[in-house]
């Protein structure tokens, strides 16, 4: 009887999850294998295809643009992820201290997240204009001479980070929720023990919300390494050439160009697998490091 019921349940469960299984086969598992195979060929959509062994991977190592794009992506991620996390945490801490007013600010902070990336890119292309942009005008008021954000090769990656930082509101909402979940008794106990504001922040608040910080860092790192929309909108076009220079060439832009503008699909597949491995290694490293610091409530997970 029990086993009949079990079989029936299993059948029903499979029926429910079948969309995902089918989709996984067609759009994930199959293409993964295909792309791995392609990465060892010179496939280019038209013309003859032949296996080239590891040549694509060797070329990856020697292609200076691959190295440039990888460096650019890392530099961007190293600016965006820590700054984004710090800003979001700072704003969430402020929001936590203003009570009901937090609702209004939370909504305002989230508006940029709803703005399409292409729109944000186009807008900041003007706001960050070196001579007459609003950002440099405001910097001028406080006596800072702003750089040529969108043309100076040294400032292209910071300007991409600025565009992304503008949409940091999602993390603020997440951190605020985490802060609200910190039991008040802990803060009060620490206060009774004579811990000051700073000490309480680092010894109580940070450990208690470390899970949310950790989650945010990992997802933002994964997203940052795949950044495409803003860079492509601001600095690349159908002309295949950058309107600036390779200083804004992020990995996904170069991969996209190889795949769909130069039709070097074998090479692009190799690039994709390298990106996958990089993301895997970084994520695993972050999880390893994170597990040492992250506190899980009740440790019941």
């Amino acid at each position, binding site marked *: 009887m029990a086993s009949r019921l079990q079989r029936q349940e299993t059948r029903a469960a499979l029926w429910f999850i079948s969309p995902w299984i089918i989709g996984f086969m067609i759009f994930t598992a199959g*293409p993964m294998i295909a792309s791995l195979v392609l990465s060892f060929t010179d496939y280019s959509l038209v013309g003859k295809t032949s296996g080239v062994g590891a040549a694509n991977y060797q070329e990856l190592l020697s292609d200076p643009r691959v190295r440039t794009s990888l460096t650019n992506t890392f530099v961007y991620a190293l600016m965006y992820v820590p700054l984004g996390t710090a800003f979001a945490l700072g704003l969430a801490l402020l929001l936590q201290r203003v009570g009901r007013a937090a609702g209004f600010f939370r909504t305002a902070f989230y508006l940029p997240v709803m703005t399409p990336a292409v729109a944000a890119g186009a807008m900041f292309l003007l706001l960050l204009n070196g001579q007459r942009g609003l950002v440099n005008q405001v910097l001028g008021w406080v006596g800072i001479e702003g750089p040529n954000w969108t043309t100076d090769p040294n400032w292209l990656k910071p300007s991409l980070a600025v565009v992304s930082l503008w949409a940091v509101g999602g993390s603020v909402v997440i951190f605020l929720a985490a802060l609200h979940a910190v039991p008040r008794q802990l803060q009060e106990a620490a206060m009774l023990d004579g811990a000051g504001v700073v000490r309480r922040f680092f010894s109580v608040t940070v450990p208690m919300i470390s899970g949310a910080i950790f989650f945010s860092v990992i997802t933002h790192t994964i997203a940052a390494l795949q950044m495409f929309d803003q860079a492509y909108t601001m600095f690349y076009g159908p002309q295949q050439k950058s309107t600036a220079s390779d200083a804004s060439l992020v990995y996904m832009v170069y991969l996209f160009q190889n795949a769909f503008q130069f039709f070097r699909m074998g090479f692009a597949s190799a690039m994709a697998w390298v990106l996958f491995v990089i993301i895997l290694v970084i994520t695993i490293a972050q999880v390893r490091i994170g597990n040492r610091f992250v506190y899980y409530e009740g440790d019941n997970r």
Partner: protein
Amino acid sequence: MSTPVVQGIPPIGGGGEQGPASARGPAGAATLAGDPGPGSRGDTARSWFWRGLYLALLFLATLAFVYPLVWLVSASLKPKSQVFDNRLIPETVQWSNFATVWDAGPVLRWLLNSTTVGLISATAVTLSSALVAFGFAYFRFRHRNLLFGLVLATMMLPGAVTMIPVYLIWNQVGMVDTQVPLWAQNLFGSAFYIFLLRQFFLGIPRELFEAARVDGASYLMMFRRIAMPLARPALVIVFVFELQASWSDLMKPLIYLQTPEYFTMPRGLKQIVDAFALSGEYHWEIAMAATLIATIPMILIFAFTQRYVLDGIATSAKQG
């Protein structure tokens, strides 16, 4: 492994689904009342000073987040020579910018395309993810955790890995330069949404389902009559998230669409930006008018759903 997860979730999903908006208000108030802890030592003036400082900083941040959008509205109405004067109220209001955008590309078509693709994408992914999530939440079957782990693992896979073969599939069936590839994958659920909805389904008391079962309800009826109505807040979040993601997506339209009439709004916007802001005579005001057109629909959607969306993120984050 499975039991602690199941046990750990209900208070979050169950409590979170109705409550966050109303529950957070008092929580916030409690913070307000409790936080002048230093102030309760009698030093209210000092606590008011800090509160004022916090509010001032927050207003400054709000300015940084919101003013660019205000600036956008203003810039889209200015003549070319005044775009960079950065004045809030345009000296000369030039409505014709929008007419120029209209002539520069089939903007109405793009808006319609984006709306259609967005609605199909969001509806498809919400329904399919809910089905799959219910499968993982309600039933007990062999290898369930392994399979669910696989679902979660796909979140780490960069889109770039499958991008080319998936393109080749659509190319093979002659669907390139149609909008089908923009939404078809959504029929099969999406890992993050499956994860999110599963948490909500786990929060529904199992007795509700058992009672329905005794009354002779089929699994599908339980899904439609019990699980779906109760998960409505979560379904709205998934729908809005996907609508936004689909509306913003640039990569897929770049890959699949060649005919301008089929473009979605971001793809069309990119074309206008290329033509007016990155080359030619640099008519920034036209690019900004198009940017505004692409942005407004999402702001409107947010205006109507922000409660759900913001509380939804807050709840889902706690589960992550």
